[in-house]
């Protein structure tokens, strides 16, 4: 390789890039493809900040793609094909980390990109621990928690008090639904097997700890319907197929508040998870500018608080919490339905993403083998 | 049963009717009886009811009314597999997944014959049709004629007394057909079996059968030996259907027991034999075979009536001459003459006179 020639070429290139950069500060693409989950969640995003943004920037058009569930696989495929068509992707935190690990998502400087809190707190402090990856811009905190039917004759009036009701077939007989993956279930199993909350991942790291969790799950295996889509548990609860089951708290909220089903939520040991934005690697300059402009708007304190008017997920900014208002259509005060509400969050979990990134492959194989037994 | 004729009859149809849709009769009041050992052909155009009759006899169709008897016993309620009738189909119906030997073995197996007996009968049946060496072939490896021989052998191998054949030679070429026609009749007579044969080919019917039943419109129009059928057709349908035929139309002018005079529509008068006419003034259709038309008037009776004719076309056929004439306003009148030294070779446009013997010209229904 002729290094000198390469060097001279670069000098010119860097020079032009700098000039172009100065000009392109105002140059923004007018089209943006946003990838989200579809359904009620996407609707809340649309109402809370996409439509207001489009009102302020009428020249922009947004294309929605409802592929977040396969975000990682599809982005990887697009990247391999050399044709990334997405501009902004909504993903759960663990997916965001994987996208980051794979080099498919862009690392961002949160303080530079995002708005400060109204009181001047830097964005990185306002989001705090929830920035679990350099590529991840949190939006909401949701939780996986348990809902149960209140009209079970066999329960003879008993109501579940804590998470271990899942494993108590004597007091609370009937079918239950759990997610068809180890994450969350393993933690609950150990917790109900007497492991202290802050030791769970240490225990789960060992072979014995994993066996212990599986042994606990074994006690209810015959009474479990395993779900893989978020809509499954609400449907099963509504049909009376199961007496209790885990799902996302927003789904349970609409089952209870909107459909009026005889179901209650058990907030105990709810597992927090995060959902937020990632920017795909390799966007061209104008598109990136547009995406950054949008993100600055869409993740500010007011916008995140607005989103909770449409869906029962907690805003990821601390500064948004006091601004949570009533549901836009039902008129219900939303704060008590937030997973982050003090009354609900007496006993909570936050996934250890790093830990699961390591153990996911291994435990998943074991979990599947266990299921197939 | 008391009647002598019915005990002799081997196959009998008595007042049999058949309708598929409850509105139209396909077979209308069929009465037919044939003695043991007879080769009877059912001849007729398609839709005339001949195949339906055969299927009723085989048991694949049930008669709507009437009785069918086999060897004196009513078989109306006997399922086909218990009737013991051999059958040969137009498309041979050889089972393609079995070898020739297995095909022949099939009827013997369902009759629970022992292996050695089966082998013996199969060999005999195959030899009968000169197909002995094809025992292990598959039907698809055989030619059409070979397949039909096998089908024949299969229908005969279990030694039925009655064999039905449904246009068995329809799919074969002319030469092969003729060979097989001969073989089938020869075999039938040698084995003394009774055969009911269905065809729409009149040559086949005439050459093979002891008797022919001509079907039309669900009825037997005439049941007679071949020569009688050809020479003495009972009605104009049979006359038209069997062999080549000239027809002329007119009105009966004079009639007695053995002859009559017919005035044609153009005013000419001809001699004819009254067959289906009974009184003066009746309209009739007369039928003359082309080979009975005579242009050498010296050979006719001096009193015979003759007709003027114009030669339209003269065709040299080798052994015969075929002359198309315009007679009584029709130009499709055919005269067939033997190629003899004294026979004139006519030219188109030539004016001649023609005539015939009164008994050769049959006055039939209009």
């Amino acid at each position: 390789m002729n290094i000198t020639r390469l060097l001279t070429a670069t000098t010119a290139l860097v020079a032009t890039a700098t000039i172009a950069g100065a000009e392109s500060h105002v140059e923004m693409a007018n089209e943006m493809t946003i990838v989200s989950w579809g359904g009620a969640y996407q609707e809340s995003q649309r109402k809370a900040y996409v439509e207001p943004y489009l009102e302020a920037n009428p020249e922009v058009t947004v294309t929605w793609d409802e592929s977040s569930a396969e975000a990682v696989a599809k982005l990887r495929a697009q990247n391999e094909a050399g044709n990334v068509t997405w501009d902004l992707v909504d993903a759960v935190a663990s997916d965001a980390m994987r996208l980051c690990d794979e080099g498919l998502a862009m690392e961002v400087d949160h303080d530079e990109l995002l708005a400060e809190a109204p009181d001047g707190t830097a964005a990185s402090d306002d989001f705090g621990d929830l920035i679990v990856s350099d590529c991840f811009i949190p939006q909401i905190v949701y939780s996986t928690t348990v809902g149960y039917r209140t009209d079970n004759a066999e329960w003879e009036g008993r109501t579940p008090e804590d998470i271990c009701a899942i494993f108590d077939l004597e007091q609370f007989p009937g079918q239950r639904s759990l997610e068809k993956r180890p994450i969350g279930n393993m933690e609950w199993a150990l917790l109900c097997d007497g492991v202290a909350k802050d030791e769970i991942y240490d225990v789960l790291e060992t072979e014995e700890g994993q066996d212990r969790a599986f042994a606990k799950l074994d006690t209810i295996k015959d009474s479990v319907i395993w779900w893989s889509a978020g809509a499954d548990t609400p449907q099963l609860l509504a049909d009376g197929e199961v007496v209790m089951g885990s799902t996302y708290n927003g789904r349970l909220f609409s089952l209870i508040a909107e459909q009026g089903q005889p179901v209650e939520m058990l907030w105990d040991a709810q597992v927090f998870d995060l959902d937020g934005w990632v920017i795909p690697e390799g966007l061209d300059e104008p598109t990136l500018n547009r995406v950054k402009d949008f993100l600055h708007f869409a993740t500010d304190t007011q916008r995140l608080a607005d989103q909770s008017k449409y869906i029962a997920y907690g805003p990821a900014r601390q500064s948004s919490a006091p601004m949570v208002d009533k549901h836009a259509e039902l008129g219900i005060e939303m704060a008590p339905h937030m997973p982050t509400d003090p009354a609900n969050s007496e006993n909570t979990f936050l996934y250890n993403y790093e830990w699961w990134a390591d153990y996911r492959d291994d435990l998943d194989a074991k979990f599947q083998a266990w299921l197939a037994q | 049963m008391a009647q002598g004729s019915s005990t002799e009859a081997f196959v009998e149809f008595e007042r049999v009717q058949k309708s598929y849709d409850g509105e139209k009769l396909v077979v209308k009041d069929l009465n037919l009886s044939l003695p043991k050992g007879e080769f009877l052909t059912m001849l007729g155009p398609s839709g005339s009811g001949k195949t339906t009759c055969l299927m009723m006899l085989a048991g694949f169709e049930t008669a709507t009314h009437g009785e069918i008897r086999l060897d004196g016993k009513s078989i109306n309620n006997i399922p086909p597999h218990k009737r013991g009738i051999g059958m040969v189909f137009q498309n041979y119906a050889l089972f393609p997944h079995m070898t020739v030997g297995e095909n022949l073995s099939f009827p013997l197996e369902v009759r629970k014959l022992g292996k050695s007996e089966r082998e013996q009968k199969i060999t005999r049946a195959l030899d009968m049709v000169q197909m002995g060496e094809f025992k292990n072939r598959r039907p698809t490896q055989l030619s059409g004629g070979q397949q039909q021989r096998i089908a024949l052998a299969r229908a005969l191998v279990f030694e039925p007394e009655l064999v039905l054949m449904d246009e068995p030679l329809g799919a074969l070429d002319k030469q092969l057909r003729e060979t097989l026609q001969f073989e089938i009749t020869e075999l039938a007579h040698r084995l003394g079996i009774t055969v009911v044969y269905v065809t729409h080919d009149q040559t086949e019917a005439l050459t093979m059968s002891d008797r022919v039943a001509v079907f039309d419109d669900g009825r037997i129009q005439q049941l007679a030996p071949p020569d009688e059928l050809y020479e003495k057709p009972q009605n104009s349908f049979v006359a038209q259907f069997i062999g080549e035929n000239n027809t002329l139309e007119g009105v009966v002018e004079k009639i007695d027991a053995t002859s009559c005079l017919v005035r044609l529509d153009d005013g000419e008068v001809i001699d004819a034999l009254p067959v289906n006419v009974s009184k003066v003034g009746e309209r009739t259709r007369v039928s003359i075979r082309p080979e009975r038309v005579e242009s050498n008037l010296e050979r006719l009776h001096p009193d015979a009536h003759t007709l003027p004719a114009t030669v339209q076309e003269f065709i040299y056929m080798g052994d015969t001459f075929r002359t198309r004439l315009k007679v009584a306003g029709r130009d499709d009148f055919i005269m067939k003459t033997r190629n003899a030294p004294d026979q004139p070779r006519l030219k188109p446009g030539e004016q001649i006179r023609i005539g015939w013997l009164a008994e050769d010209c049959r006055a039939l229904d209009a």
Partner: protein
Amino acid sequence: MTHSATTPPEQPMAALPGGEVTEGPMLAADGTPLKASLKRALRREKLRALLLISPLLIFILVAFVGPIADMLFRSVENQIVSETLPRTVAALRAEDTPEGEVPDEEVFAQLYTDLVIAEEYKIHTRLGSRLNYEMTGVSSLFRSTGRDVGRFDTDIYTDQFVEAAPALEDPANWVAWMEEEAVREALPLTADAWDEWVTLTVEENEDDPLEEDVPDFVFTTLYRDLTAGATPPDAFPDVDVSGFETVSIKALFEDSDEDWMDPQLWQLIETYSPEYTDGYFLNAVDMMNGPDGEAQFRPDDQRIYLKLFWRTMWMSMVITFSCILLGYPIAYLLSTLPLRSANVLMILVLLPFWTSLLVRTSAWKVLLQQQGVINDTLVWLGLVDNFNRLQLINNITGTVIAMTHILLPFMILPLYSVMKTIPPSYVRAAKSMGANDWTAFWRVWFPLSVPGIGAGSILVFILSIGYYITPEIVGGTEGVFISNRIAYHISSSLNWGLAAALGSILLALVLVLYWLYDRIVGIDNVKLGG
């Protein structure tokens, strides 16, 4: 016959009508050899035929052959290790570290260079996730050390070199030195590191190397070159490194994460250093490359794929069999009914085709669940106790019922089209020979319909073996197929190599079954009609 005898047969056969007798190759009218001109004519015809099918051919190549080839390639492809850590892999091979031991400083020094560069390209985490499929914990090991590696204490070399020869600080000087062949030859490691850094700076970061500081890892390689006894030409500053303060890179890695001292990790890197691997295939049959490099079965609690393959096979057979059982009488009825009623029935058979697969499957859910229509009816009829409702879904039963329903038309259609071609005269012939209804059916009609069963079975079996959505929705845990795991590895775990290996095995299984079928039944006996 007598006429043909009059033709004199004496005429020689070789004589052409023109009277000329030819010798040697036959010639066409224009004098060219007949064979050549025939070939030319045929070639033109072939070309035209090729042209006609070319759209389809291209489509098949692009949409079918290509992806399958890509899948086969992916199932063995493993360039990621040698591409991300090229120097480490080379050093490991050269070194031949005894089994069960951690390699020495030299390998770690190369790993340092590799990892610094990989971190800059942000590809080290990708390698971490790849190796994490084989060994738990590698993912976070690479991620955490990736964060540390840029801040390793190797800057002591930089400081000491700059102090000893300030010219070393200016990248412009480096550019000049590295132009000289003699310098490059004397300092191979340094030259390699320098080139890598320049490429990285220019292409990835789009910066000007002349404006950047020469990085620590270049100085570290320079130190290693010099301690190895290199004597650069005079143009290069003469620095005596013997008195330099040193740092153990191995120790730096150990400080970052003690897992680097795990011999198993190094065994793993070595095992997966070749460009192609059987690892995915081993994994796909519940095996793995053991610590000794030999293939061995995974522990019991991780074995799943063989079981799933087996289950996929036998459930597909059960589904195929139920399709035959249900489809045969319907097809029989269809083929014997008059055309008009047959057409009405045919529409009923095809109706499921016109409904979305998802809708049909979900409908089964409503019907089969414990509080569903069927159970409700059974309870109402008193056949089933209200507290012991039948478990008809989320298990094998559910999958078999729903898939039989969905695949039934694929059985009925070929059966029908074959049965339609069986002439009724065969059965009549059989009956006329004395066979009763059953014998005529069993010995004549049924054997002739077997090609339809064959075609339908192949269709249904191969379709069901790759089915995914229906088992996912109604299969619960016992009723899922191997394809559900393939989908999981494609979309969730991102272990595409394993997914490709599973897919390849599935493909091979189908081909083997097809071959077996051909051997036993004969593929000529498969008819879709006619």
